[in-house]
């Protein structure tokens, strides 16, 4: 169990688990947006804009995990 092996393991785990949470979050978010658009098609522009902003927030969390993974693998 050298440190280098554990670092690679940690890098893989970090982004793997991070993407799980982000995937679930985005699925819920986009699903709710589609539901809202189906109920009231005239506000779909507003819903789409808010969804894009929400996706950026959720994706940022997954990208923090990716940055940690890069640090672990390449250092």
């Amino acid at each position, binding site marked *: 169990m050298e440190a280098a092996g554990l670092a690679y393991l940690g890098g893989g785990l970090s982004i793997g688990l991070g993407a799980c949470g982000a995937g679930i979050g985005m699925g819920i978010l986009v699903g709710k947006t589609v539901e809202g658009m189906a109920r009231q098609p005239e506000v779909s522009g507003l819903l789409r804009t808010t969804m894009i*902003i929400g996706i*950026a927030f959720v994706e*940022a969390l997954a*990208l*923090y995990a990716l*940055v940690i993974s*890069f640090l672990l693998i390449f250092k």
Partner: protein
Amino acid sequence: MDLLHHFELHPIVEIHVLGIDLSITKAVVMMWIACGLTFFFLVMGGRKAKLVPSGLQNFVEAIIGFLRSNLILETLGEEGVAWFPFIATIFFFIVFCNLLGLIPGAFTATSNINVTATLAVIVFLCTQGAGVAKHGPLGYLKKFVPKGIPLWIVPIMLPIEIISQFAKPFSLAVRLFANMTAGHGVILVFLFMILMFKSWAITAVPLIGVVVMSAFEIFVALIQAYIFSILAAMYIAEAVQEAH
């Protein structure tokens, strides 16, 4: 197989001023090109403005109209229109920086954490400055503690508010940096797959992957610039709004 060497910067012209390394690297050249493109794109769109626009003027006006209504009027309101040139400049600079990186042989300036951190620090200074200018230094600090909450919550809430003030520009920087790096990194991984298999027959599959990922990257470049600008506008609006 060293993926990272495409993201490393080597100085083209070495300039050292008082011990600070100001060498001109590929990222600096790309940022100059992005600034030049922004300038020419907007100036050419505004030249000889006709009352009924067509061509480039129409395109530029459409983008500016979209930015104005969507970014400024919704977040900052009518009196926030003074912030519009700043937010629009940030948007166009980030769009051109991101899109230039997709040209083979060019470097994405925003995939360097220093560039995005600089942009985030500028936004941070603007939010703090706007808040202090509107409310005065003491009034701005008083906004961290809303009225009407029990006194024992304040020692918990104040550090959280202060940390969140610093975490917001940090997340702006990391979001843009990681999106750009990850996107171009995926394209590089696909290209390395072609080299790795060393066979002409397999070349088609990673090539399709590269084309699809590049198309997705164009989309992500626009979205990330839009997200950065609208979050910057929202943070400024939050600093300027009246305490509730």
